[in-house]
């Protein structure tokens, strides 16, 4: 691949910081085959001993040209592809895409479908946050949470499997609603799972929230201000941990989110510890939403009346949802044919990753690991 030295010029070499003990600055590669980079992310670090002077992300190792593929598939055929971007939150990806095409078609999913969508999407948010917590804690050195979260995430994947036959890349939704009616005892099973999960979230918190090592490794690490977040386009829990009370589920409600009561947890300091607290609080809010949805799920059809051949009128639409990682947007252009003329995915992971450089500047190498973990990126979505 490309020689790492070609990137050095882009790191700010102009002003050389005073180096400790007059040692030389060091350029090292982290990744792409490093377990703590959560996939194939390569970060070139410029170091003064342990201190990070600059970073450069090299991405694209997982690029598959999803946007190009979209132009050569019909609207329905492209639906399963979006699951493969953020593969730990496939349901959210599908929801965003289906709703975007529905808007373009000017149809609305029936209320029951919207409730099913909310339940599954929030379950997926829980699963995504659990995976984040397990791997993030593992990176920092706490092994136990990984086993706890993966044990409990399994229950969510079982519900997915029972609902649509797939555990990870679910393809749960279709344009116009949901393909499958909920299985017998779905509501009961989801409720049972929530009763099971709630004490488990306390358990995760017991392991970490006041754990001295955890606090030392996360407090004040990877700070980012609200103004920087806005300028860098950072969304999701990272933005909220910096004190901005903004969630697309509230700001521009989609699916059935306007029917439910829930809070937007925010942080104050915008550091890794606050982001941890925000995500933990979000898990509780997701539980709250699912409880309301399961109790009030209306009867009726789960699929809107849409034509067999999907041919949206000429036009374009931008629709975005609050994915577990931030704002996930789809910009779809139709030329009136059966295939989209252009699908642009606005990936939260890609945009959030851009903040890495700012967040680790002047911190220690070990903090880079913590910050990559706290940004909660999925390389499938970064590279698409």
């Amino acid at each position, binding site marked *: 691949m490309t020689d790492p030295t070609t990137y050095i010029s882009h790191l700010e070499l102009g002003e050389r910081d005073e180096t400790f003990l007059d040692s030389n600055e060091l350029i090292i590669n982290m990744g792409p085959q490093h377990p703590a980079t959560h996939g194939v992310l390569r970060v070139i670090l410029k170091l003064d001993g342990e201190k990070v002077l600059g970073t450069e992300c090299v991405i694209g190792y997982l690029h598959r040209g999803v946007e190009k593929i979209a*132009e050569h598939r019909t609207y329905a055929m492209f639906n399963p592809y979006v699951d493969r971007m953020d593969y730990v939150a496939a349901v959210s990806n599908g929801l965003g895409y289906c709703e975007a095409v529905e808007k373009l078609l*000017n149809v609305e999913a029936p209320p029951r479908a919207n409730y099913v969508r909310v339940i599954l999407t929030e379950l997926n948010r829980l699963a995504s946050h659990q995976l984040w917590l397990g791997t993030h804690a593992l990176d920092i050195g706490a092994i136990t949470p990984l086993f706890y979260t993966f044990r409990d995430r399994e229950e969510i994947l079982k519900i997915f499997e029972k609902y649509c036959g797939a555990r990870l890349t679910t393809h749960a939704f279709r344009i116009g609603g949901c393909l499958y009616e909920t299985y017998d005892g779905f509501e009961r099973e989801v409720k049972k799972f929530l009763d099971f999960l709630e004490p488990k979230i306390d358990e995760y918190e017991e392991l970490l929230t006041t754990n001295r090592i955890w606090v030392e490794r996360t407090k004040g690490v990877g700070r980012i201000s609200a103004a920087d977040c806005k*300028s860098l386009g950072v969304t999701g829990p990272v933005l909220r941990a910096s004190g901005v009370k903004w969630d697309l589920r509230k700001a521009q409600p989609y699916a059935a989110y306007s029917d439910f009561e829930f809070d937007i947890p925010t942080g104050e300091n915008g550091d890794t510890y606050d982001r941890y607290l925000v995500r933990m609080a979000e898990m509780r809010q997701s539980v709250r939403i699912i409880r309301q949805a399961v109790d009030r799920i209306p009867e009726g059809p789960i699929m809107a009346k849409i034509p067999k051949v999907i041919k949206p009128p000429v036009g374009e639409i931008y629709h975005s949802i609050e994915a577990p990682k931030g704002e996930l*947007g789809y910009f779809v252009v139709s030329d009136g044919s059966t295939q989209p003329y252009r699908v642009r995915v606005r990936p939260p992971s890609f*945009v959030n990753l*851009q903040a890495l450089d700012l967040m680790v500047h002047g911190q220690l190498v070990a903090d880079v690991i913590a910050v990559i973990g706290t940004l909660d990126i999925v390389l499938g979505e970064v590279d698409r």
Partner: protein
Amino acid sequence: MADETKPTPGSGTSQPTGASSSPANTPSSPVTTSSSSTPPAATAAAPAPPAKPTGPVPGPWESPLVDKLRRRHGSGIEATTYLGQSYFVVDRSLLPDFLRVLRDEEAFDYCVDITAVHYPTREKQFEVLWILYSFERNERIRVKTMIADGESVPSVTPIWATANWLEREAFDMFGIKFDGHPDLKRILLPDGWKGHPLRKDYGIIQQDNEWVQINLGIESGQ
């Protein structure tokens, strides 16, 4: 199809025979009587609704924001709304001032996305667009501009820091140059790659064979 057969407004005024030809297609007498008495502009509008499929159509976007920006920048701004989403089509020469005003004075402080669409048949092939959001107003708008192949657009990295990677991606995928970008290079594809895959003339299985053979040591990436 009814739209195609109906007479043009100009011919309708000068020649009454033009107006009489339309009832031959649509045998509804009330329309013919009204068309002969009303101005031709109304005749053109009257048969249009039944011909169109039911659904929203793009319409002019009217809001205080549009008036304000029109007063400031004059012509070269087109404001449209479709399916509840509003967008500006602005002349390239108004950029980046137009975008800067939107951020500084209209509180569009969050640049959601920068991307492009390729229309190879048009004279100005590329439509570059900025999706903006304002936390304060809870409003999302799009700003578009058309550029020809090889033409560049000003970078908005001084306005929104997020533009850095987004512009790099647009450059990588379409070959659009952003003037003033601090480090415009490929981001998802390797540095030495030739071609810009999201252009319409780039085939779905096309690739830079030379790069694949040299760097991966295989005949084909497929």
